[in-house]
C-alpha cells in the first residue's frame, strides 16, 4: 500500500482506475496506475484513529483534514478533549505540530519523525512522507494471489533513494479495482516493521478507496491501530491559506 497517501499521510491510500484488464500489466504499470489515481486535486475528510491496546482498552481520536495535491495537508483533532485543537501542517516533506495549550507550533524533524503519531502505530514519518511509487521504488511481480476472494498481484518494491522511511515494501494490489489490500513495510536490514491491511473499499466518483486501514507496528507490540474514514469529499475547494503556518497557529 502506498501508506503515506493519507491525509497528512494517513489517508488517500492507493487506488486505481476502475478499469480492469490487468492480466498482462507489468510491475511498473501497476505503480503508475496507483500513482495516477492517487493524484487527487483536493480532498476533505473526517476520520478517526483508534489505538487498540493489547489489554483490551481503546483510544479513539477524531480529526478533520484537508489535502491539496500530494504536498499539502492540514489536519485538526476534534476529540477527545485532551487532543482537541492539536493541529498538523505538512508542506512537502516538512511537518509542524501546533500545541494549543502551549500556544506554539513546533517543527517535527529528523528522527523525531519516527515517533508514533499521537501514540498510534503510524509514525510522523508515515504522515509526512509521500513518495511517488513509480519514481521512488523499483518493483517486481512476486506472484499472483487472492485476498478475500479478490485477484491481486503481489509486488516487491525496493527503494531507489536512501531517505525513504521504508527501504522495501511488499504490496498486494487488487487488479480489478487497483486498490492495495495489504502491505508489508521493511527496514533496510530486511526486518519487517509494519503490516497494513486495507478494507471497506468504496467507490467515489471513478475511484476506489479503502475506508478502513489496520496497522500493526512490529516494534510497538502493545498496540494496533485502526484508521477509519467517516466522511470523504473529493474535488472540494480548499483555500490556499489553510496550508500556512499562520493558519496552523490560529486555526482560522
Amino acid at each position, binding site marked *: 500500500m502506498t501508506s503515506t497517501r493519507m491525509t497528512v499521510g494517513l489517508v488517500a491510500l492507493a487506488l486505481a482506475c476502475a478499469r480492469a484488464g490487468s492480466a498482462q500489466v507489468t510491475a511498473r504499470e501497476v505503480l503508475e496506475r496507483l500513482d495516477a489515481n492517487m493524484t487527487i486535486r*483536493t480532498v476533505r475528510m473526517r476520520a478517526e484513529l483508534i489505538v487498540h491496546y493489547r489489554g483490551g482498552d481503546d*483510544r479513539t481520536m477524531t480529526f478533520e483534514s484537508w489535502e491539496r495535491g500530494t504536498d499539502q495537508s*492540514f489536519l485538526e483533532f476534534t476529540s477527545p*478533549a485532551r487532543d482537541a485543537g492539536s493541529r498538523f501542517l505538512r508542506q512537502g516533506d516538512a511537518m509542524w505540530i501546533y500545541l494549543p495549550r502551549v500556544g506554539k507550533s513546533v517543527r517535527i524533524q529528523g528522527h523525531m519523525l519516527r515517533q*508514533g503519531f499521537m501514540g498510534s502505530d503510524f509514525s510522523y514519518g508515515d504522515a509526512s512522507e509521500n513518495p511517488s511509487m513509480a519514481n521512488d521504488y523499483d518493483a517486481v511481480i512476486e506472484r499472483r494471489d487472492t485476498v478475500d476472494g479478490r485477484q491481486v498481484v503481489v509486488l516487491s518494491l525496493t527503494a531507489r533513494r536512501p531517505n525513504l522511511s521504508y527501504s522495501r515494501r511488499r504490496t498486494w494490489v487488487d487488479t480489478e479495482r487497483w486498490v492495495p489490500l495489504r502491505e508489508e513495510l521493511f527496514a533496510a536490514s530486511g526486518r519487517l516493521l509494519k503490516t497494513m491491511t486495507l478494507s471497506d473499499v468504496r467507490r467515489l466518483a471513478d475511484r476506489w478507496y479503502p475506508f478502513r486501514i489496520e496497522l500493526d507496528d512490529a516494534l510497538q507490540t*502493545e*498496540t494496533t491501530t485502526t484508521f477509519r474514514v467517516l466522511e470523504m469529499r473529493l474535488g472540494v*475547494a480548499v*483555500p490556499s491559506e489553510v496550508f500556512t503556518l499562520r493558519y496552523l497557529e490560529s486555526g*482560522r
Partner: protein
Amino acid sequence: MTIGRMALELARVAAALARGLARAAARLVRRAGLPSVLLVLAVVPLAAQAPEHPDSAASDSVAPAVRTRVTGYLEHQFSASRSRGRWTQLDHDRLRADLVARAGRGVWLEAAAVWQLYRGDTRVRLRDHLPASVAAGVDTTSLVIEDRHFVNHAYLVLSPGGVEITAGKQYLTWGAAWVFNPTELFRPKDLFEPTYEREGVGALSARLPLGALSDVLVAYVPDGPFRTSGKVARARHHVAGFDVSALAAAVYEQPAATPAGAASAPSRRLVLGGDLSGEVLGLGVWAEGTWNDFAGDRWAEATLGGNYTLPDRTLLLVEGYFNGWGRPGDPYPAAAWLARLAGERRSLGRFVAYVAANRPVREVWRLGVGALVNPGDGSAALVPSVAWEFAENVELIANGLVSIGADGTEYGRGGVGGFVRGRVYF
C-alpha cells in the same frame, strides 16, 4: 469550587471585561472623537463580513469547521521536596477552562481562565533556595504562595485585508530550542518541565503573512508608560528545508535585586537574535541565539541541539547552552542567584548541557529521564519521569528531581523532590 461558583466567577469576569471595554470606549471617544470611533466600529463589521477565503466561495464548508468550543481540565498535583534537611510539601488543584469562539467572519475570541488553589507549605523561605554563603546576607522574608484566579490568555483576533491583528493577553512564545530559548522574552520555560503551559502576555500584535511559511510579526507589550513598554519585531521564513527567524526587541526589565533588597528602575534590554531548525543527515537540529544589551552589560546567548530516535522509538535529545552572562564556575554572586530565582536568567553558569531520553513502555506508559548539567561547577539535576495515559482523557505524571553537587553550585542545592500530577480533560 462548584460549577455554580465557576459560572458566577465567569460572570464576574465577563462583567469586569464589559466594564473595562465601556471605560476604554469612553476614553477613546474623549481622545479620538466620536467620528473616529464610529469609523472604527464601521470598519470592524465590514472586515468581519468580508469573505475569509476569496477562492473558497464555491463551498463555505470546505474551510475547517467554525465552532465555539469549550474545553479544559482539572489538575491535582502533590509535590514534596527535601532540602537542607527539611521536608516540605505543596499541593494544588488547578481548574482551567478554555473558550474559542467566532464572533463573526474574520473575528475570533480565545480565552482561558485558571483557578489554582494551594495547600501545604505555602510559605517559601528564599534562603532555602540559595547557597549558605549567599543566604546569610539575604532578607529572610518568606514568599507566600497564594491561591490564584487569573486569565491565562484572552484575546481578540481580527483579520482585515490579510493582516492578522491580535489584541489582548496572547501567546508570544518563540524559539526552536527544546529547553533553553534565548529568544524567549516574556515567559521563560520551567527548565525542569519545559513542555508545561505558560501564561500569555498582554499585547497588541500584527502579523503579515508573506507566503505559506513566512511572515512578519510586530508586537507592542504595554508595561508602564510607552517608553518602557516592550516592542518586538520578528520575521520568519522557510528556506532550503530550514525554518529561519530573526528577532529584534526592546524590553524593559528590573535589574536583579541586590541582596539587601534594594530595587532599581527598569532598564532597557535590547535583544537581537534568531533561530533555525531543520534536518541534517537525518538528525533534527536546531540553533537559537541572541545578543543582549542591558544596563551596561552586553552578552550573547546561544543554544545548539539535536534529536535522534532509536529503532525502538526511544527519543534522545541533546542541547548545549552558552550564556555569556554566566560565570565559568562557582562561586556565583548573590545578584546572579536572585536573578535566576526570579526567572530573569536561565543559568548561572556559562555552559549548561541538557540531555534527555524518552520512550513508550507497555501500552500507555512513557518513561523519561532528563538531566541538566553544569560542567563548570560539576553540578547536575536529574529529572526522571513517568507518564501514564490512564484513560482517554485522563493522564498521570510523576516527576522526580535529584540534585548532584556541592552547596553553592548551580544545581547542587536543590535536594531531592518530585511531584505526582493527575489531570482530567473535559
